[in-house]
């Protein structure tokens, strides 16, 4: 079992979840976060922290598509371990339920070059 980030995260990316994850299993795309299902220990602490209610246990029905996106993107996006500011238009996109067309599969832009 794992927790799954679903479309409520798209274009919001508040990252409250990141600060509480004990195993740093969040990965950051351009406009969404995902959870690596292989790393998630199923502690559930992130679920109530998400202001968009966009984190769900995979025991909920109908999450197959999002579970696949989480598993796939976690392999290619960079890990995120500290909370950052939400996306600039987070308020505008908050609470909008149909956002999956807006999902970017690009990784997050790195804040600085390494």
């Amino acid at each position, binding site marked *: 079992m794992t927790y799954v980030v679903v479309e409520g995260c798209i274009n919001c990316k508040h990252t409250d979840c990141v600060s509480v994850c*004990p195993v740093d299993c969040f990965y950051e795309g351009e406009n969404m976060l995902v959870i690596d299902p292989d790393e998630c220990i*199923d*502690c*559930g*602490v992130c679920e109530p*922290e998400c202001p968009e209610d966009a984190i769900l246990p995979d025991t909920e029905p109908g999450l197959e598509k999002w579970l696949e996106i989480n598993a796939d993107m976690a392999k290619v996006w960079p890990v995120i371990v500290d909370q950052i500011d939400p996306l600039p238009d987070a308020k505008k996109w908050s609470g909008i339920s149909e956002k999956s067309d807006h999902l970017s599969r690009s990784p997050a832009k790195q804040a600085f070059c390494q």
Partner: protein
Amino acid sequence: MNTPLTTTKADIKVEGERVLTVKHWTERLFSFRIERPQSFRFRSGEFVMIGLQGCNGKPLLRAYSIASPSWDEALEFYSIKVPDGPLTSRLQLIQPEDRIIMRPKPTGTLVLDALLPGNRLYMFATGTGIAPFASLMRDPETYEKFEQVILVHTCRYKAELAYGKALVTNLRSDPLIGEIAADKLVHYTTVTQEDHPRKGRITERIQSGVLFADLNVPLMNPLTDRAMICGSMGLNSDLKQQLNAFGLTEGANNRPAEFVLEKAFVG
């Protein structure tokens, strides 16, 4: 990983924190204390990942609530022993001077910050789910924030209540908060699998109102009552529904409300 490297007498580098004491409570339950890294900070009620070096060279870690309060100079943990559990089958064999690996990122929702102010705090635990409350009930802040603190602990057998009973007894003679805890802390136990004056699941006692009658308190209400839950998935979900029915809503670190819950982790 950010675990400190330490040098043993044999000059072999060993990762982890030193085990100070180990106490076996039953055949299935034990507690242990480890050295607290100087830079390690946490809030009472939080958990961390701890464990041992795995056979494949990688650390084998599980989530454990810190059972000691945030002011304590050592870190205490309370664990079940699972005979074929990858970690606890080995963890139960630890001795003083052994090393425990700890990932220094404490987290969790069973913290006072995640609750709105109130008068009465219920802490509902089953089994080893008492661990975060072992921390909170020894933290003076808990008694500063609440007029009454009710620790409700349900176990399968009477012997499994021993850890909680010892904590409460010792707390009442604690020089720091003994007096205030004696006034404010109520310990309520139930047992599900053998004869006991209070036999049965806690959810049944809430449903029937027996819990509140026994405690001589009114039914729960969202103006005065706050709750923390740490138990099995089944208990958490049943109790959550009952608290919702009383009008209490679930909180989180960034959204304090009337109750919080966390899974009781098993090895």
